[in-house]
């Protein structure tokens, strides 16, 4: 009698665990799960695009291989998010000091219509000198965003101009080109700087 009760509890327990696992699967990976949000970017070595940096040099994903990379999207007509991100990054780079010299830091415009090479040159000049500004034809920008699994969209503004919605995260890649992690928009320095160090350290390990 006693043993049967124990078995009964055991069976109920197994059943409960199985149910929990099933519910968990359903909610996370199964049909009840959310749409896959923000897939991981592919490695830089798997990307293919041609852009121009703010000094007029032809650049592409291969330009970034060999050093860890911090990359993000924006546009120079952006009044709030982009200057904030650029200022945040400038602050992180100041914190990293000499270590920052080992990195590529790239600001890629999602608004090539207004952000010419000259415009990018003037704009990045106001922030940390390590920050490079990349622009190029719209179809090339689309290829970059595709590789990064980033999105952008042109939205008309009441002023008659337009603004851009865009992925505001900062992407970190190892020197090998492998995607490491991303820093969310406006993430506190205490979290952002260790993440950057992780991308930097990965390079060291790769090198030894």
């Amino acid at each position, binding site marked *: 009698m006693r043993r049967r009760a124990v078995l009964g509890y055991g069976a109920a327990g197994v059943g409960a665990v199985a149910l929990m696992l099933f519910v968990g699967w359903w909610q996370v990976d199964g049909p009840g799960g959310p749409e896959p*949000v*923000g897939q991981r970017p592919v490695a830089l070595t798997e990307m293919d695009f041609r852009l121009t940096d703010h000094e007029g040099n032809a650049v592409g994903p291969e330009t970034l291989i060999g050093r860890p990379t911090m990359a993000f999207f924006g546009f*120079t*007509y952006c*009044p*709030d*998010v982009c*200057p*904030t991100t*650029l*200022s*945040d990054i*400038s*602050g992180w780079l100041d914190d990293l000091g000499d270590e920052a010299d080992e990195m590529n830091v790239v600001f890629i415009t999602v608004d090539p219509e207004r952000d010419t090479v000259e415009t990018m040159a*003037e*704009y990045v000049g*106001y*922030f940390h000198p390590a920050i490079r500004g990349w622009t190029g034809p719209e179809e090339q920008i689309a290829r970059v965003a595709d590789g990064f699994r980033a*999105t952008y969209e042109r*939205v008309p*503004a*009441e*002023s008659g*101009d337009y*603004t851009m*919605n*865009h*992925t*505001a*995260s900062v992407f970190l890649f190892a020197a090998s080109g492998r995607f490491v992690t*991303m820093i*969310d*928009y*406006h993430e506190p320095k205490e979290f952002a700087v260790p993440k950057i160090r992780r991308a930097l350290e990965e390079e060291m390990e790769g090198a030894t």
Partner: protein
Amino acid sequence: MKKYILTGTLAALLTLGGLSVPALAGPEDVVVENAWSRASIGMNRPGAAYMTIRNTGDEPVTLIGLTTPLAMMPEIHETKTNAEGVSSMSPAGEIAIAPGESVALEPGGLHAMLMRLQEPMTEGDTFPLTLLFDDGGEVTVEVPILGIAARGPED
């Protein structure tokens, strides 16, 4: 009848000078602190200004608009970042501030979007920004223009 008070740099200076904070026309209960903005590159791009608006009174107040000689279309906008990390910006509409509460206009959230600049925003200058409230009250604050890379009022 409520009265608005202007604080910020001017009030701080006056307070340091041993004078009381001057009461301007309008409800006495709205205090604007830590106003700042970033310099612009030319006049084509919209500017943004930030501040904290505090309702120190017993009645709710509702911010309904902005005016400034600096921009033809000043408007409170809000930046939102969704779960996929995509940021977008749209007009925030009217902003109600309950008694004793404050609303922060800060990077990545609410901001005074200054569209159609009439002149470039130059670092070191200031400009007057008037907040309009639904009871007809208004308060004007002198907003300092900091560098393009400024991160907050202390920069």
